[in-house]
């Protein structure tokens, strides 16, 4: 999953990884994707699992056309997370590529 070669495609460097952690409940995907849709953020990949009893969802998104600044998007998702009792993080995809791939 999440295959991508940094720097070799259009929009590289505009991809972010959104991680959602917490207790499973109804409406997590709907809630998070609503915030993304409102701001023209395209979801490229989505995956979820239970890791050590914690609901874990990871989304890879394209923020090229995002209507708001990165910092503002981060805040909106954080607020949505608080509303749903979840921890939501947004990070540039390079962090993960850089750490785990040469």
């Amino acid at each position, binding site marked *: 999953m999440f295959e991508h070669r940094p720097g070799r495609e259009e929009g590289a460097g505009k991809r972010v990884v959104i991680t959602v952690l917490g207790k499973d409940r109804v409406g997590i995907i709907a809630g998070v994707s609503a915030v993304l849709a409102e701001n023209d953020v395209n979801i490229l990949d989505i995956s979820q699992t239970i890791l050590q009893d914690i609901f874990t969802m990871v989304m890879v998104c394209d923020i090229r056309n995002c209507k708001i600044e990165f910092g503002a998007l981060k805040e909106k998702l954080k607020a949505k997370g608080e509303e749903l009792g979840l921890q939501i993080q947004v*990070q540039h995809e390079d962090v993960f590529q*850089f*750490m*785990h*791939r040469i």
Partner: protein
Amino acid sequence: MLSIQEIMETIRMVQQENLDIRTVTMGISLRDCCHGDHKAVGRRMYDKITRLAENLVRTGEEIEREYGIPIVNKRISVTPISMVGESSDTDDFGFFADVMDRAAGEVGVNFIGGFSALVHKGFTSGDSKLLKAIPNALAATQRVCASVNVATTKAGINMDAVYEMGKIIKEAAALTADKDGLACAKLVVFANVPEDNPFMAGAFHGIGEPECVINVGVSGPGVIKNAVDKAKDADFGTLAEIIKRTAFKVTRMGELVGRAASAKLGVPFGIVDLSLAPTPAVGDSVADILEGMGLERCGTHGTTAALALLNDAVKKGGAMASSYVGGLSGAFIPVSEDAGMIRAVSEGALSLDKLEAMTCVCSVGLDMIAVPGETSAETISAIIADEAAIGMVNQKTTAVRIIPAPGKKEGDYVEFGGLLGRAPIITVNKFSSTEFVRRGGRIPAPIQSLRN
């Protein structure tokens, strides 16, 4: 292909294991600030520092936000002030320290390094003026850090400078007696000092460096500790391999942040320093890693071997992760800044002599060691001489950052707060070294310096 496990591993390192970038340090050359009029020197220094570092803090914060990796400190290092101020008309180099302090305050960094002199073979007039100004400058400013290089493998040890530093350290402690001798925490005495070290208090911008450069220091003892904990029954080869792999990941974050900062600021990327820098926070300790390898307390027999393994594995993993490695790149064992070290000293497991032995296998030096206030300048000088000898003979960097805490004795504590932490007063050998230190002159360079 990234797996969900890999993504969660990164998140866990940051959130639970204190992975962070310890410092992004901008090195700035002040060589073009020299002038006959010291006020003109001050103006040029202030203007250049505030111009080049104007966006340093903001850019650092931007990178933190984008990547979700905390950058604990943004700092500045400058050309040794002994050179910058040398041709000016003042004898009071404290003036330049004040300029550095104001410039650092203006751009919002917490420390600025480079109130420094390189005197391993002797003093120029600028060096002498700088050394004379150190105690007052450190007592009067908040952000200025000083360092003095007293020895190299090539030049030997300048014992006149070593003796001088013993006296300067005592004076700096006396001037900040109300704060347990805090000024000494901002002063490092070096042998074989690197010119691109991003870590305070010993950072300065070397004379072989470009106009402006970005150097990065990583952290991550907590991440290594967790990896070591998971390898309880592994043999040493496996243990080293696990540390190498983990160090690679930690260092990659430094490389990423360094490249991003360099691109955003339009300043060349210098080096990543591979040192594992601990903090007083629980779980961010180098001593804990050594104990995780199977030692009951850091400082007991086996500690030197454990540190040698750790340091080497960190370098091997780190070197593969970064295009340019430099600075100190050795494990830090600062007593006051590492909760595990503090505990080891308090419980009598870790002594000054053991710390000295540990510095032989590649840790950087005797760092943040608090000794009784009555310790003489000569004894401090002798401690510096021992450490410089280790550096000189082993062709490595060694450093001493020692605090003779006024009015304190064994069993007491000094409290500096923040990243500088707290330290128990450590026992010093009671026998005198005075006659030895007072001989003066230079200890000649060792035979291994003759390599050509």
